[in-house]
């Protein structure tokens, strides 16, 4: 086993994590993309996506997780999600109203329907997921710093 895998929890936890984490991420993406046709949406899906990264951090330690999604990338995605959301809202002015659903709504219960709602869900997912992961990473790093001082 490579050196970077020394940290973190036991072999059992690591193996189970390796098997499940992809499924968790996939499930999060599913929740986001189906936000407009089934329960869930950007917030719930974003939290699940962030949890898949938190899961890696718990099982393998912070280095491995931060290599997958660094703090600056998380910070970028968070701001980008917010700007993306605002741009969608402002594009509504093409029809005269803030937040106007300006794309054709399509057939109900189809994956490609509901106009701007899936795009809004993706923007919210970026913001919430990256934000939650950044908060978790900040708390973990703070803990390590205090431990080092002691």
């Amino acid at each position: 086993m490579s050196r970077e895998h020394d940290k973190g929890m036991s072999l059992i936890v690591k193996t189970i994590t390796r098997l499940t984490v992809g499924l968790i991420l996939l499930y999060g993406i599913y929740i986001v993309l189906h936000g407009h046709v089934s329960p869930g949406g950007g917030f719930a899906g974003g939290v699940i996506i962030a949890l898949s990264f938190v899961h890696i951090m718990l099982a393998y330690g912070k280095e491995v997780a931060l290599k997958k999604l660094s703090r600056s990338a998380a910070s970028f995605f968070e701001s980008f999600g917010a700007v993306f959301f605002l741009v969608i809202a402002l594009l509504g002015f093409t029809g005269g109203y803030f937040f106007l659903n300006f794309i054709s709504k399509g057939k109900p219960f189809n994956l490609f329907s509901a106009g701007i709602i899936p795009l809004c869900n993706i923007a919210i997912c970026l913001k919430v997921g990256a934000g939650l992961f950044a908060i978790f990473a900040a708390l973990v790093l703070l803990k390590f710093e205090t431990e080092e001082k002691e």
Partner: protein
Amino acid sequence: MAGSGIIPLFVAVPLGGAFLNSLLGKKVKRLTDIIGVSTSFILCALSLVALRLYNANGILTHSVGGWRPPIGIGMVLDGLTAFMLVTVNFAAFCIAVYSINYMEKFTSKWKFYTLFFLMLGGMNGVIITGDIFNLFVFLEIAAVASYALVAFGTERHELEAAFKYAVMCTVGSLFVLLGIAFLYSYTSTLNMADMGNILAQSGNANITILAMILFIMGFGLKAALVPFHAWLPDAHPSAPAPISAMLSGVLIKSLGVYAICRIFYNVIGVNENISAILMFLGALSMIVGGLLALGQWDLKRLLAYSSISQIGYIILGIGLGTPLGILGGLFHLFNHSIFKSLLFLNSGAIEYTTGTRDLQKMGGLGSRMPLTGITGVVASMSIAGIPPFSGFWSKLIIIIALVQAGKFGYAFWAVIISVLTLAMYVKVIKYAFLGKLKEAWGSIKEVPIFMKLSMGTLAVVCVVGGMLLLSGMQGPFLQGAQEALSEGTKYVAVVLESIK
């Protein structure tokens, strides 16, 4: 309706500024200042356009997402909104210019601007929204951003003050949310105009009285009226100077005073009891804040207590409920946002060069920092009510209105506290700017150019502010705001008419 598309921009522009800053400002240092100042300049210009639009077209409404209120969220631009937007965004622009130089001594300036514009977006949102739950959401945005800004220095006492502020203001927000929940359960609507309509038809029930008590506690806490003021003297001095100016200058007014005015005057409808309660709380804040300020030696703490006292004047004038009283209260609100921002910026300039806030350690700084000295004296004279500065006229109107309404007791106290205010600011001038220069400050220099520019602009407004009362100027700016409040629940009919 023509021109109503401008209304949501007051939320969109600051949020855009905030997130662009966090996206780009970290990598390109120069860009932070450019985005910060240009965003606040755009907002300031937009608020003047909004004032013009209101005067040309009357009340304007915007339905977010094209959904008609009361089902969708409505945004309303009326006289009071236009007045508050100009006040908030002008002060924010001056403060953003000041921050270019001042925030250099902190790390990660982009974080400061991001939080600053989130707070500004929240305040603008509270002012323009016509939906009571939307008001709560924007109130929380502004409040949460301000908790982080109070703790911006991350020193021990700053964190402590921010924590105290966060706990107390969260309790205040909780009261507001509970009040909104009760009103919603009673009226089954969240649109303010629609809610006012239903309340007027169904008469006063006990649940409305309960909601009113909760609103007085919640918004009173945000406005730092006296029984609920304990967080302010810690939180305002601990923040960096531009944020103290923002908090004392406009935040407590837009989250506290504006929300009280809007909900009590336009939605629920004011009666004698509410008027008496507001006037009593106002007078109490005025007296207690004034007396506590007098004994302070920390410059920023003195200014914070003085804010409580001046908010008392505003609430006293508005609570009186006569057109003249409301005019005086609103005019004092505008003036206070200018000169209190200026005083906090002055204290920041002193802290920037000398590193102290203790009045006893200062002395003779006027000779070394002439512009800070002059603007400080102008602001102090203005807040103390010396003619011809702006503060004199607004206090005069409030006192005349009190005498006309036969409230001689309140008028007496207003005069006494005005004298006390003069005493505390004479103390500031004497200890900070006049007297002999202490040896330690022999080598200090005047502050950099952008700080000077912003303080100079605010001082000019202090001097000429009284001109706003001239009939030609008063009409477009103050009159519309005063009418919006003194017409009371007529707001409901006007907004409902405008939605159709």
